[in-house]
């Protein structure tokens, strides 16, 4: 019975948590305090609900109890008379059954959790905690760190917000682009942490990626007129559509070219396509996420590597390189060029990259270069590059794959 209630409380918290914390944060003016109060209310629920039953509007119950706790705290401190009176009035204004969270509060919550005073790590943890409604144990499990480490990270994040007196507010228009970009980065980091096949249990990884997709949907509902928010959701849906096909029966990563495309999730592809169309329909220039989503869509719609519209992909990478230049984008463009117009043109781009010294120490450059050289029949150089790539990667499976490729050349 008690565990049943505990499971229900966890489910209710997943649904209501963000809005409860957001409402409280607006009242008390501080995210950390709001989160602590809400957790106290959850503890009280775990005590009371098994005995008294679960209230009709559990979100309202939690909010009311947490507000009462806030008042008790202030009363004990015998200060902030004015705030107490204000809060008291507010409390009376909110009869349980009519409690409706204000959506804007959740938006403030997202921006507070991704505030620039916090490290990226702290932003990620706090976003999953307060917006995603995950408990600290779950977040620690998903990120493969000990629970106390995650606990500390979250406590420190909340303290940092209080210490910096970060207002519980939506950013000013002048700050908007940078702050929005930070939120998108945090969500995409959660996704890539789940999508990256680097380590850990495949099921957990999928769970984390789905959490990011959910956060993307939350943000899309809050900011329906921001094309990059939709672009990010499109990108995540399209990448996630390949989940089932990207690992083989032994848990080894399968390259895009070798994936069984029948196992791609067609409904996720359809959702990704719709999201990208919605982003485009807003009539602004595509941002980096929308462009990456468009590239992912080219792959998703192709029946095979050979039937892929590589010219279009090259064009999209060129556009991406113009608005968000990076060596990785340039390298991806090279790969696309090699498919569209052959390895020689691509090698020129890669050699240009080598010349700049970018991506030094990464296995990416030598592995692509090795691949191109091998296609050009320059076997000895290719072998050398692939071996050096194998030495540069810390991912054992990837290294093994590269070594196999190198060995195949010397046969």
């Amino acid at each position, binding site marked *: 019975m008690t565990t049943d209630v505990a499971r229900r409380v966890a*489910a209710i918290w997943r649904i209501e948590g963000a809005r409860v914390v957001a409402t409280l944060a607006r009242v008390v003016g501080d995210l950390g305090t709001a989160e602590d109060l809400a957790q106290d209310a959850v503890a009280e629920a775990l005590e009371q609900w098994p005995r008294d039953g679960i209230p009709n509007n559990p979100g309202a119950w939690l909010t009311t109890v947490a507000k009462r706790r806030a008042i008790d705290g202030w009363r004990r401190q015998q200060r902030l008379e004015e705030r107490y009176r204000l809060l008291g009035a507010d409390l009376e204004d909110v009869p349980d059954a009519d409690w409706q969270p204000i959506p804007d509060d959740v938006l403030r919550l997202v921006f507070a959790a991704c505030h620039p005073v916090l490290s990226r790590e702290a932003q990620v943890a706090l976003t999953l905690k307060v917006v995603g409604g995950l408990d600290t144990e779950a977040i620690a499990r998903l990120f493969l760190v000990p629970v106390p480490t995650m606990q500390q990270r979250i406590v420190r994040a909340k303290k940092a917000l209080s210490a910096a007196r970060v207002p519980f507010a939506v950013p000013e228009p002048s700050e908007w682009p940078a702050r929005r970009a930070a939120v998108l980065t945090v969500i995409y980091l959660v996704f890539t942490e789940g999508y990256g096949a680097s380590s850990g249990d495949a099921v957990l990884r999928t769970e984390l990626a*789905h959490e990011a997709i*959910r956060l*993307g949907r939350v943000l899309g509902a809050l900011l329906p007129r921001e094309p990059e928010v939709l672009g990010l959701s499109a990108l995540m849906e399209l990448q996630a559509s390949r989940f*089932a096909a990207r690992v083989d029966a032994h848990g080894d990563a399968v390259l895009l070219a070798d994936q069984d495309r*029948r196992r791609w999730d*067609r409904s996720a*592809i*359809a959702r990704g396509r719709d999201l990208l169309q919605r982003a485009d329909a807003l009539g602004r220039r595509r941002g980096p996420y929308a462009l990456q989503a468009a590239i992912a869509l080219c792959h998703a*719609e192709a029946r095979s590597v050979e039937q892929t519209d590589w010219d279009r992909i090259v064009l999209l990478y060129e556009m991406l390189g113009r608005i968000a230049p990076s060596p990785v984008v340039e390298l991806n463009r090279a790969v696309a060029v090699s498919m569209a117009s052959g390895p020689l043109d691509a090698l020129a781009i890669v050699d240009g990259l080598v010349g700049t010294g970018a991506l030094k120490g990464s296995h990416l450059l030598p592995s692509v270069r090795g691949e191109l050289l091998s296609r050009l029949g320059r076997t000895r150089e290719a072998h050398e590059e692939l071996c050096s790539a194998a030495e540069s990667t810390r991912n054992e499976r990837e290294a093994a794959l590269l070594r196999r490729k190198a060995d195949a050349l010397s046969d």
Partner: protein
Amino acid sequence: MKFMLIMRGTDEAYAAYKQIPFEQIINDMGAYNESMMTAGVLVAGDGLAEDMSKNFVVEFGGEEPVVTDGPYGETHELFNGFWIIEVSTREEAIEWARRAPLIAGNKLEVRRVTDETDFAAFADNEYIQKEEGWREEQASR
């Protein structure tokens, strides 16, 4: 994991709905849908029309399937709408289902939607492959 919330109404519910202004029903449903959208769980959903000039039933039994216009014979519970939600636990699906703004006489049947893991052992099956091909065509419409 995905769940389908299947709405079923009885004659009792249909009669009761006639007493409620249609706009209120739209508002209640709209608020519910919006809450699932803002929580990032809503994947799909639609209502099914009570359009007797378009609806029909195909019954299988004899040599040939028999097509008849609605209404639906002896059926007392009509399937009249659905939502597909994506959540992390069964409990979460239950909490969402409980929140549906449905009046007395309605029922929600909640079913987990199969995903490809359900058919992983049959990935090479000819029919599974055909199914995938069909989905592919749908998706690249």
